[in-house]
């Protein structure tokens, strides 16, 4: 019956220490003995004991005083107070001071076994609780938040600073920049992390569906409402609700949402009972909400209610230094997921990726790497494995024709490894024109 539990026996009577020592080592426990409280406290500072059996009456510091000291050194320690003369007062005092149990000597062997079994269960539960908590923390840890660029570091600093508070947050950024990951990071670093983070993609639902989704509904509230259903606000009690694409909600829903945010209470659709829920709200959008407020399509009062903190996530093209790190992370992620050996990526491919616009941001890069691993040779990701096609140049960020022309010529030159003849043929211009364009746009061949 080997066990990892360490026990400390504190009693001034040698025969008691010996008896308990022999009894417990036969059960496979690790046992230490101390003849008085000060020796025990010294031992506790050097070694971690899980269960401490202490006599109440000892010369010098008594068991109750020692119990108080132990609770300051190791609050989770299980202390069992033993006494030859039990009184109600001392028992109550011991339990008030945090003793796990109070027993009268001598004990019945079965009582001792029960006592230790219960204490061991308590230790196992506490350790299971710790391990589950750490698993939750690990689950909630957002490892996809990768970036050494100053822009990304600034975002991470903002996450750290806002997370512990209860403030509403609006996360703004282009599609694919990882707004939900930022929301998860805020939730995971907040005191609400042991409660759920509930996500709602507002843009994907019609007004009536969104209402039912957010507030829940009572059976019979509408055709198809066969059961009572909890809404997302109710599910997010003590946790966080993440409202993605907040800019898409209707004017009516904006009013409803404002009311819920102000009162933290609501009724299910078809219900008449007021439900309270303590949630934190984080929203995300790729639209300019302020502009929407100015042109009257988004309520100003709701905007200010939501916009306590605004975190702007930069698009990938503004943090190209993060691309190698992200590529490395996605390679490891997908190679592990596909049970493949980790593949490398040729330097030229990294260069091409850095030049790419990534209108779909990190999501697009991730998909690109996943695809390259699937279609590649299994050893190295090469430029030809990456779908860096011509049309990709036409991104939302390119507005002028000149800029478009420059990007396109650069892309074609890179595609043909700066072979001017082949590139000019592909562009259907003569070589001189191409040279002039290279000069005009100050295009340079990558190293």
């Amino acid at each position, binding site marked *: *019956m*080997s066990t990892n539990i360490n026990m400390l026996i504190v009693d001034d*009577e040698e*025969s*008691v220490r*010996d*008896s*308990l020592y*022999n*009894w417990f*080592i*036969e*059960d*496979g426990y690790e046992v230490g003995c101390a003849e008085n409280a000060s020796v025990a406290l010294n031992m506790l500072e050097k070694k971690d004991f899980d269960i401490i059996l202490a006599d109440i009456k000892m010369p010098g510091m008594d068991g109750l005083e020692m119990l108080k000291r132990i609770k300051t050194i190791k609050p989770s320690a299980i202390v069992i107070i*033993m006494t030859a003369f039990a009184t109600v007062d001392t028992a109550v005092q011991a339990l008030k001071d945090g003793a796990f149990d109070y027993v009268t*000597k*001598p*004990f*019945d*062997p*079965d009582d*001792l*076994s029960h006592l230790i079994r219960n204490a061991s269960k308590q230790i196992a539960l506490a350790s299971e609780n710790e391990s589950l908590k750490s698993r939750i923390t690990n689950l909630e840890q957002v490892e996809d938040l990768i970036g050494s660029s100053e822009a990304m570091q600034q975002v991470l600093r903002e996450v750290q600073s806002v997370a512990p508070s209860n403030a509403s947050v609006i996360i703004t950024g282009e599609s694919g920049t990882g707004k939900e990951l930022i929301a998860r990071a805020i939730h995971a670093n907040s005191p609400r992390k042991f409660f759920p983070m509930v996500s709602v993609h507002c843009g994907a639902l019609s007004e009536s569906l969104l209402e039912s989704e957010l507030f829940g509904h009572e059976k019979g509230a509408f055709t198809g409402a066969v059961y009572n259903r909890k809404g997302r606000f109710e599910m997010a009690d003590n946790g966080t609700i993440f409202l993605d694409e907040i800019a898409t909600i209707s004017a009516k829903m904006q009013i409803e949402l404002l009311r819920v945010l102000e009162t933290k209470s609501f009724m299910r659709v078809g219900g008449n009972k007021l439900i309270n829920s303590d949630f934190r709200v984080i929203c995300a959008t790729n639209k300019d909400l302020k502009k929407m407020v100015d042109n009257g399509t988004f309520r100003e009062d709701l905007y200010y209610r939501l916009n306590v903190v605004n975190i702007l996530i930069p698009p990938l093209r503004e943090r190209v230094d993060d691309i190698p790190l992200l590529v490395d992370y996605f390679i490891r992620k997908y190679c592990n997921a596909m049970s493949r050996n980790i593949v490398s990526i040729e330097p030229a491919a990294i260069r091409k990726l850095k030049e790419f616009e990534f209108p779909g941001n990190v999501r697009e890069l991730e998909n690109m790497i996943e695809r390259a691993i699937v279609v590649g040779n299994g050893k190295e990701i090469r430029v030809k494995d990456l779908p860096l096609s011509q049309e990709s140049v036409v991104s939302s960020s390119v507005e002028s024709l000149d800029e478009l022309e420059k990007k396109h010529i650069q892309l074609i030159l890179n595609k043909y490894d700066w072979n001017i003849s082949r590139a000019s043929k592909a562009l259907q211009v003569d070589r001189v024109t191409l040279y002039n364009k290279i000069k005009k746009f100050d295009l340079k061949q990558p190293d």
Partner: protein
Amino acid sequence: MKLPGITLIAIGYFERKMLDALADEVSNEYHTDVYLREEFKDLSPFFDPARKQYNGNALLKEIESQYALENRKTIALVTVDLFIPILTYIFGQAYLNGRTGIASMYRLSNERYGLPRNDELLFDRCVKELVHELGHAYGLIHCRTLRCVMLSSTYVEDIDQKSMHLCMECQKILGIHDHKK
């Protein structure tokens, strides 16, 4: 691997036939020789008038100092009721990985619980106690296997639930599993 031999010291009045049979059982379990010795020792110095029981710690120390030998395990079988200061009673005890153990028959007989005498059951319980305490002397700790003789027992009913033998795991620890069929 052959384990160190065993000296079984019977302190008190026992039927010789029973002692021989006990020695045989113990010898079969541990595959080692058992030397049987009968002693008529005065146990009164170990009697605690307040508890009306005999001090198991003190008796174990006495057996260790008077009878223990190097390279042998010595176990004393007594008929008196044993206690240790912290517990109301014990069936027996031994030094873990030591040279000595003690076992008491006092609480093993059916009559003690108002039941009809059953010599066969008493014998079985006695074997289990001796094998159990000797297991500790050989270094075994309590085992969780339900039928293993090294399972901890606090009541006589618990003793009846387990077998007279070591489980495979305990045999492996002692290196005697190859001796078994």
